[in-house]
């Protein structure tokens, strides 16, 4: 019995219950119960029709719940409304579920939690562990999120961009626990890509694949960070890179560029270089220009300045950096790097130490402290 197969069916089962007249919040709870039941029963007694089994069990759970907290008349009306189970529009249901869980009325943290539970089929405990909060806190976050979207019509199409932002957050800001959130984000984005032909969905999927492919090279055994230029590229997952590039090319061919496609294009250019020296920085700067044009994001400008430092030399990079707000995250680290490339070691050491103090996480702080220590040791001779 494969838990990921089970979780892949979950959104469609919620969809069936909702189309039968269940409210989303109760349907979602019922499907969670059914998933837990399936994990218990299926190993010894696998069903012939897993989805049919889940629908039957979840629907029974839903009726039990409805019986518990609603009047007899409502319940009977529901049972009578129940349409015959049929082949149903599973892809549409799944897509609607993504929209609902990423609804603009939800805060990003709530949308992330709800997406992982309802679309991803993860348990509240797994989500709580992944985000390092107590299970009761996560349970509250999810039930509040469900109340927030209680009045939202399930059949109304939503904005793909909001869904992509949620999936990007899951991929980029997942922490720890026994669930690999990056892999889960890829699974959910892949599933979304089969439900809609939106170019940016493909762009985000490509971006995730291209970054995930480099993961084995990104940290050493002791947990320390390895900068891109120093990574052992033989550790990169070439099959995943090939898939990412293929997905990206198909998206770019449709000629509707968006921020995720542009970011994926940059990742693809990095993936394409056999060693750091072979990196096509000129093209990377061009893609950052596109990204800045699309998003106007100061973070994109910062990255562009660093790329420009590689393409046209560190002085050009520093000049581009000088036009940006020094309060930007990682501004000081970028400045330290460019100063070192420009040969100004004293400034670089001072800036690395300063960047370490404002680092947003421990691995980055440790990395920047090591950089400062390395240059100071060089300066001492």
């Amino acid at each position, binding site marked *: 019995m494969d838990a990921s197969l089970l979780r892949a069916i979950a959104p469609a089962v919620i969809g069936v219950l909702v189309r039968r007249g269940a409210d989303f919040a109760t349907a979602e709870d019922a499907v969670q119960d059914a998933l837990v039941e399936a994990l218990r029963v299926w190993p010894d007694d696998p069903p012939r029709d897993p989805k049919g089994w889940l629908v039957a069990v979840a629907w029974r759970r839903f009726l039990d719940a409805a019986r518990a907290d609603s009047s007899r008349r409502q319940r009977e009306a529901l049972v009578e409304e129940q349409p015959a189970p049929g082949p149903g529009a599973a892809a549409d249901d799944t897509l609607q579920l993504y929209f609902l869980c990423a609804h603009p009325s939800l805060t990003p943290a709530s949308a992330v939690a709800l997406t992982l539970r309802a679309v991803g089929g993860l348990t509240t405990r797994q989500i709580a562990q992944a985000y390092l909060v107590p299970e009761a806190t996560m349970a509250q976050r999810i039930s509040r999120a469900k109340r927030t979207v209680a009045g939202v019509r399930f059949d109304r199409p939503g904005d793909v961009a909001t869904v992509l932002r949620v999936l990007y957050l899951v991929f980029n800001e997942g922490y720890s626990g026994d669930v690999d959130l990056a892999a889960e984000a890829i699974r959910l984005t892949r599933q979304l890509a089969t439900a809609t032909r939106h170019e940016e969905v493909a762009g985000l999927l490509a971006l995730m694949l291209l970054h995930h492919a480099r993961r084995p090279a990104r940290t050493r055994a*002791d*947990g*320390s960070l390895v900068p891109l230029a120093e990574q052992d590229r033989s550790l990169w997952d070439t099959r995943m890179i090939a898939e990412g590039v293929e997905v990206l090319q198909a998206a770019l061919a449709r000629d509707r560029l968006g921020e995720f496609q542009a970011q994926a294009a940059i990742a693809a250019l990095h993936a394409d270089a056999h060693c750091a020296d072979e990196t096509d920085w000129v093209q990377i700067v061009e893609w950052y220009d596109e990204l800045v044009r699309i998003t106007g994001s100061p973070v994109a400008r910062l990255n562009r300045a660093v790329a420009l430092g590689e393409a046209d030399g560190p002085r050009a990079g520093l000049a581009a950096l000088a036009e940006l707000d020094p309060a930007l995250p990682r501004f000081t680290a970028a400045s330290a790097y460019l100063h070192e490339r420009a040969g100004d070691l004293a400034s670089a*050491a001072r800036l*690395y*130490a300063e960047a*370490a*103090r*404002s680092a*947003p996480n*421990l691995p980055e*702080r*440790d990395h920047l*402290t*090591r950089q*400062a*220590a*390395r240059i*100071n*040791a060089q300066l001492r001779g």
Partner: protein
Amino acid sequence: MAKYLLLKHYRGAPASINDVPMDQWSPEEVSAHIKYMRDFAARLETTGEFVDGQALSPEGTFVRYDGEGRPPVTDGPFPETKDLIAGWMVIDVETYERALELAGELSAAPGAGGKPIHEWLELRPFLTEPPTITE
């Protein structure tokens, strides 16, 4: 078992014996220090004494209520003299002596020249739940 909070300070604790800023160490010394800290926490997990540990950013702000309908008042960043916590570890141990022993071990983390930092750590007992039997 009793829970203790081990506090590490950026500022405000008495100066360590081996008091050299980290960016003046060699890169190998930095790595050795980080490894020591990680191994220490990992070992406490295996002995069943580790509860939680977090590092804090040096950026911080004082905040207070400023009356109905007004936004909270903020103050900071703190003056150089202000006590500034760098991080904490919560341990759950049999005795006060064991807590002292562990704090001492943590304070012996290697610094410049590979020698122990002798950093001052603050050890604070948790207030406990009241016992069921009181007489």
